[in-house]
């Protein structure tokens, strides 16, 4: 297998999915954010967003905190160190694949 193809197969499947990649990218540049911000910025439906966030949480890439702002439930999400490392690795792999093509 060539180097490029090897890099392609090494891509993290959890992050590689476009919706989850968007979520991880959004979370990587902030400390934490809430469901509403992710909903607005990702353009996903509430159901879809919940599913993708659960998938990321299962993988240990994000951490969820449920709180209340007054009487309104409020859920915040943050990228874990494992998630940050996975995202950095994913971007590196992507760079290698494109560099390999040139």
């Amino acid at each position: 297998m060539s180097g490029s193809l090897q890099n392609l197969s090494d891509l993290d499947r959890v992050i590689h999915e476009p919706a989850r990649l968007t979520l991880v990218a959004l979370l990587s540049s902030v400390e934490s954010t809430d469901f509403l911000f992710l909903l607005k910025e990702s353009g996903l439906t509430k159901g879809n967003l919940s599913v993708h966030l659960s998938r990321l949480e299962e993988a240990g890439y994000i951490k969820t905190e449920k709180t209340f702002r007054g009487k309104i439930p409020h859920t915040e999400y943050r990228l874990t160190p494992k998630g940050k490392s996975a995202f950095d690795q994913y971007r590196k792999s992507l760079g290698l694949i494109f560099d390999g093509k040139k």
Partner: protein
Amino acid sequence: MNVQIDSTLKRARGYWFVDGFIEMAAGGLFALLAVLLLISGNTSQASSTSWLLSVAGEISIAKFVGILAAVLILWWLKDHFTYPRTGLVRGKRITGTQILIMFRNAILFLLLPIIGLLAASLLIVSTSNVLSSMPVWFPIGLGVMWAILCVLAGEWMGLRRFRLMGVLILLAGLAIGFWQLALGLPTFPANIRPGILQPLVLESINRSLISLSWLTLITGVILIISGIVTFIRYRRENPTPYMEEA
């Protein structure tokens, strides 16, 4: 793919500017400082040093109080208007060293014009040419510096309107510089004595302060207009607060 990721990262970084409040607050602060500078410029006193020190003191106090008030108002506005509509974002945590570096840079950036004027007033004899042309180069240099900062910030956050603001600030700096040039520069005699030179230096510094005031005022107005336009667009796109279901 990397381009899309970069654009997503920039969107999150620029979220603080999504509603226009920060631009309006910064613009208001700039306008306030400009008015203070213009008032100070009209009340010139006998001693240039004491006059400059009093101006520096007034502006430092105004900056401190203004920034503190702006932060509190912004905090309240974000909490009651922006977060219920498009969500809460907490910025990256920064270390103590980073805070110190940012604080140092902010102080340097804010005090640079004043320090420049004070330093220029202390170097009268050796820099008479520089001083006489100060009303021209000072607003142009400052306009270029602010424009670069504005464009760089826009690039980092993916905000196109910052590029336009940078260009407008640059044009404002150039226009003020050429306006001062058209008014004519103070001519310094070849053999100068501090006692004789003092009023000329004072005139040069006073005109530079007027240039600074106008540039600050125009920058403030540009920021306020940009903030209002951004706010109107944000309000139209997000008319009502969103409620998360239990």
